[in-house]
Structures are given as C-alpha cells and as structure tokens.
C-alpha cells in the first residue's frame, strides 16, 4: 500500500531554532506539494515541485522558509529561524504524472502524508 511518509510527526522547538521536515513521496509521483494548515488560515499551499524542480513557492515566506528536493525520494521543508507564528501542521502531498498531452484524463489527485505538527515556543 503506497503512501506518502513524513517525519517527524511531531516537533516542539524554541523560537529561533532551525526546523527541518522531511517527506518521502509515493514512488513514481513526479509532483510534490507542501501545505500548511492552521485554524485561522485553513490549508495554504507553500510550494510545489515537478520532476524535482520548484514550480511555485509564492506561498512561502522567503526570508525564513526553504524547500528542496535533493532527489526523487526526498523533499524537505526548512524553517530558519523558526517563530511561534510558524506553529501549524505541515502536509506533504504527491501526485501521479500529468500526461504530456495535458488532456482531462491525465489530471490526477494528490495523495497526502500524515503531516508534521510543529509547535514553536
């Protein structure tokens, strides 16, 4: 049963510390997404990748957040320095390859990981 995995599941840290969250997408998926979920803002898209290349990170605070895909099996989201307002659940999701024809049948859903609950004190 293929699934997206995320580590750690829970992270408590102090303000100013560096936080790194990791995601292993489903094998064969070529798109990877990072989302943040809070009660106030709901679900926000932070960044996404296709074939390991960043396509859009406009939802991410540039000064402290960075997202990378060192290889096809690992995506990372890093916060440095962390702040209390970064406290949220961070989700990674991956998607099946989009067909080169771009037709309707080629569009597929996203598969979400269990999330990393981050608390910054």
């Amino acid at each position: 049963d293929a699934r997206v995995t995320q580590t750690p599941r829970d992270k408590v840290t102090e303000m100013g510390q560096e936080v790194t969250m990791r995601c292993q997408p489903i094998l064969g998926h070529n798109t990877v997404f990072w989302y943040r979920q809070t009660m106030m803002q709901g679900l926000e898209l932070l960044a996404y990748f296709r074939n390991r290349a960043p396509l859009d990170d406009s939802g991410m605070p540039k000064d402290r957040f960075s997202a990378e895909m060192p290889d096809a099996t690992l995506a990372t989201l890093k916060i440095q320095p962390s702040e209390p307002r970064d406290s949220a659940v961070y989700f990674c999701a991956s998607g099946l390859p989009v067909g080169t024809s771009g037709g309707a049948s080629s569009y597929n859903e996203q598969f979400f990981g269990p999330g990393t609950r981050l608390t910054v004190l």
Partner: protein
Amino acid sequence: AQSVAQPEDQVNVAEGNPLTVKCTYSVSGNPYLFWYVQYPNRGLQFLLKYITGDNLVKGSYGFEAEFNKSQTSFHLKKPSALVSDSALYFCAVRDTTPYSSASKIIFGSGTRLSIRP
C-alpha cells in the same frame, strides 16, 4: 481568479439521514473539481473528482457529487449518513491560471461534518 467557496463552516446531520455539503466554484475555462476528506489527526484523502462526462460523480465511502454548470456548484452528497462520516471536507478546483502547473489545485476553507447517532 480561480476559487471555491464552502458557505457552511459546519453541517450537522442525524445518522441515517441524507447529507449535503455545499461548494460553489469560480473558474475560467472548464472546471476540474475535487472533494477531499480529512479525519482527525490525518492528512487529506481524495474522495472524488469531476473532469468531464456525467454530472453525477460517484466516489469513495458511498459519497457522490453533482456538478451543476448553471449554478456553478459541486455539492457533495450521501443518501444515508454514518457517524464515521464525521470529518472535515474540502472542495477544490484545478488552478487554470495561465502558466500554472496543471497539478496545482486550490482548496476551499473546509466544512466540518458532524453526524450524531
């Protein structure tokens, strides 16, 4: 700009009764629409999608959704609710902004569905 609206923050239904979770959309071009469900302390799970074809789409766990182009709606429905259906439900639409990846989708604010025994 593409968007989806879920007008109800919470929907309460008695077990065994039909349920409807509302969603309206605004897109340029053909809408690709989705429903996802989130159970407590879990990630989102795909329920169903409308791309083209029949307006009534069937999905997981007995859910279905009706696409209505004239009303720009994509309401989620189930004939008989179960207590285990209690969760957070998200409507979503594919982002058709020029130059956007076809993979990017935009989520609504979510509706909390509560089924009482």
